[in-house]
């Protein structure tokens, strides 16, 4: 069995390759001129440039957070290039046929034939290749019902009043070190607006790829669900194999107005580094949503990639009766490190939140759940249920749980439960005795362990996630 383990652990990262497209890339380094260049490149209005500069000056005063249970070498921000865009930007393609064939091939290698998937699954893809949206499909169909789905740079020009009103309203510029950095240098990202009472006819999806070597990617996503609307948004990521660590600091802001519902699903499979822990993506993400009266935000994430993950999708339950959910599977192998979890801030009355977190650590990795549940004095009748389970595979990995529970309201009820154990020998034995090999058995057990979270994913994603887990994990059990 240990041989199989070795073999599977040695398995190369399937999505590792890079595309040769001539990019317009800024020399590494960060200063005001870089921000002016990015802003000028996008023809941004003055208010946005000022907004960026304000964030930049705030960032200069801030220090990197050190409380997370992760260790990595200091990042030299003067060695990171803050802008890169595919060269064919100026004549942006209107349909798939006009897209750079090299780019399309990249996606095919990843097993996501764009047109096929779009057609089959009815998904409109907003593809972010490095930093600039290259193609947006199904836009017209969405526009029929009034849904706006475009890149954020386009939204700045076309819907400035919406962007101006909501950008930075959930994650303020000075929220944290990486959010401030993102505010200063964000290159592009997605913008979604669902009008009042509209149920978005299809699932919206973005595929991110980090391609240029040494390029930090700083997306910014803004989703606004107006009163009574509903949207499901999918985010998936893979990145080509690189030796140097790449930086990724995204910001996602969700706004669910009265009675609206947003479902945000992520599958993250960025390059985790090789088996010696060399290379891999640094993923420092700030994701947060605000729920108004009767609104609901649901985060689902499957995190299998990145060398370092620092990510806490959160819900601010501001309105009465609002609901926040967080479902997470975080898998780490080799030298990966993940410190992830959620924050549920209960402000309104009768607000409810559910947290289901499944951590799986294998190899020499470290996997931490860090969560906060806060009941403010006004959160009468609020309710939280938290369950964090960790599965350990191998005796060199670590699994940690750091839940912060703060309550200032007696009528609020909080329940927190956490367990840690290894794959049970009995279960393994039973499966093997029924004719499954050890590997299949483990895969089955792990899939079962994560079932609660997978069932929250949209169908296509659930299949992908199951496979992803199998590839990342198979055989690392001994």
């Amino acid at each position, binding site marked *: 069995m240990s041989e199989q383990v070795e073999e599977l652990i040695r398995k190369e990262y399937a999505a590792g390759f890079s595309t040769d497209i001539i990019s317009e890339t800024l020399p590494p380094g960060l200063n005001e001129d870089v921000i002016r260049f990015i802003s000028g490149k996008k023809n941004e209005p003055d208010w946005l440039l000022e907004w960026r500069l304000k964030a930049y000056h705030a960032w200069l005063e801030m220090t990197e957070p050190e*409380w997370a249970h992760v260790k990595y070498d200091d990042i030299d921000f003067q060695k990171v290039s803050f802008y890169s865009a595919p060269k064919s930007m100026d004549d942006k393609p209107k349909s798939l046929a006009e897209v750079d064939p090299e780019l399309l091939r990249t996606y095919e290698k990843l097993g996501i034939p764009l047109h096929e998937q779009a057609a089959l699954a009815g998904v409109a893809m907003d593809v972010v290749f490095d930093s600039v949206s290259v193609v947006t499909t199904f836009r017209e169909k969405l526009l029929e019902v009034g849904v706006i789905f475009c890149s954020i740079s386009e939204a700045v020009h076309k819907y400035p009043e919406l962007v101006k009103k909501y950008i930075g309203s959930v994650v303020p510029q000075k929220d944290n070190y990486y959010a401030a950095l993102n505010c200063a240098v964000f290159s592009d990202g997605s913008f979604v607006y669902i009008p009042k009472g509209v149920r978005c006819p299809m699932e919206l999806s973005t595929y991110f790829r980090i391609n240029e070597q040494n390029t930090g990617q700083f997306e910014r996503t803004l989703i606004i669900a107006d009163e009574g609307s509903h949207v499901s948004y999918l985010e998936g990521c893979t990145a080509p194999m690189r030796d140097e660590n790449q930086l990724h600091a995204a910001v996602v802001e969700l706004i669910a107005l009265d009675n609206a519902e947003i479902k945000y699903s992520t599958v993250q499979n960025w390059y985790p580094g090789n088996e010696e822990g060399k290379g891999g993506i640094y993923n420092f993400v700030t994701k947060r949503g605000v729920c108004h009266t009767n609104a609901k935000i649901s985060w689902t994430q499957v995190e299998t990639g990145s060398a370092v993950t620092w990510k806490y999708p959160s819900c601010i339950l501001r309105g009465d009766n609002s609901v926040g959910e967080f479902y997470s599977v975080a898998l780490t192998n080799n030298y990966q490190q993940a410190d992830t979890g959620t924050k549920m801030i209960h402000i309104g009355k009768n607000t409810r939140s559910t947290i289901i977190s499944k951590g799986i650590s294998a190899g020499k990795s470290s996997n931490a759940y860090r969560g906060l549940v806060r*009941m403010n*004095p006004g959160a009468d009748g609020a309710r939280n249920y938290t369950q964090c389970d*960790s599965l*350990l*595979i*191998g*005796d*060199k*990995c*670590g*699994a*940690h*749980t*750091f*839940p*912060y*529970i*703060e*309550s*200032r*309201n*007696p*009528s*609020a*009820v*909080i*329940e*927190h*439960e*956490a*367990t*840690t*154990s*290894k794959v049970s020998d009995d279960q393994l034995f039973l499966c093997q005795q029924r004719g499954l090999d050890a590997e299949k058995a483990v895969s089955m057990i792990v899939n079962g362990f994560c079932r609660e979270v997978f069932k929250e994913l949209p169908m296509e994603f659930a299949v992908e996630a199951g496979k992803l887990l199998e590839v990342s994990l198979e055989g690392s059990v001994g």
Partner: protein
Amino acid sequence: MTDFQQQALTIAAQQQSPAWLAPLRSQAANEWRNVIWPTRKTEHWKYTSLASLQKTLLSLVNTSAANTDWKSEVEFIDVNAIRLVFVNGVFDAANSSNFSENIVRFSQANSAQQKIIEQYLGKVVEGSQHLFATLNSAWLDDGILVHVPRNQTLDQPIYVVQVSTLGEQTLSVNQRLLVVLEDSAQAELIEHFVSTSEQQNSVVNALAEIVVGDNAQLQHYRLNLEEENIQHIGAVHVNLLRNARFRGFTLALGSKLKRIDYQINHRGQGAELNLQGVYLPRNNQMVDYHSNVQHWVPHCTTSEVFRGIIADSAQAIFNGRIYIHKDAQKTLAELSNKNLLTSNKAEINTKPELEIYADDVKCAHGATVSQLNDTALYYLQSRGVSRNEAEVMMSFGFINELLQQIAEPAVHHYLLPRLAKLFGRDQTLLEMADE
């Protein structure tokens, strides 16, 4: 260096202590000088502010001025034990019993006992995060050694009482306990902190270092019954050797500042820890319990239960950490923390933590926060119990589950009427709880 650090050093300089303790004292004073003063950003002090401590003007205890007014207010636990009484940190021989050969004050230790003290003192405390342990060593003018030789069982519990009374100034009280149980020894220790109804914001720094040898067993009680103005920072550091057993119970009422650390190290295979705690802050008081259980070796067991009822505008903090080191396979560890909030202004911050580096372990923790269950209250009311009474019954029942498990009947009998009074109840409840 903060004002408080400076003040503490001045006090240390004024103290008189046995010469052979001088190296330890000066080393600790040096460390104290370089201690990083905790702020709200310091993880271990995130919710507990030391602002009141900073503002305190300390003065050294005047050894001659021990008064006896407190006797009418303070009642001892009625237990057949070797009793050591300290009033504001000063030993009160009149109220203490004769020591057995197992117990000695540091200042009176003979050379053999000094050897034991030097061998163990300051060795159980680990790491730089326990800054008040450092302060305790810097302030070390005396202490108590409990030493139980191999295969010996103490036939009487050891009962240490620390009384805080109203004095002329704000005092700094330092208590140090060193308990060494050799292989297969057995003992019972009761630490009792109590105050008179009026007292200043004196600072009590009470540190116990405990070594439980192979196959040895210790029953330990720590009752923090001082209220209101007292600023108490206490810690119990325990090393458990092979197959050692530690059974602990702790109870704390709130005060202006009350922080108690339990630091337990499983250092020998097969060690067993059973720790139960109750905290009951009310008015504007606070209680902060930090427990940190370190599993260094395989085959050890931890079972920890803490419950709290937070009333009025009180604040409670609980941090329960279980750390499983790399080789500590086959560990079983469980922690449960349940909290009742009985007022709109009460606050609880709890954080049960698990940090695990071994795979073949079973660990779990759970935490809950809520108010009394409406359905249960309704049930009692429908049976003719008044709302108020029903609430008291249920709150009391909530902690009574733990009180009932107290192995020492004297402690149980001492606590019950006092807690019942705290809940505003009379004898009938006692009878109910006693059953």
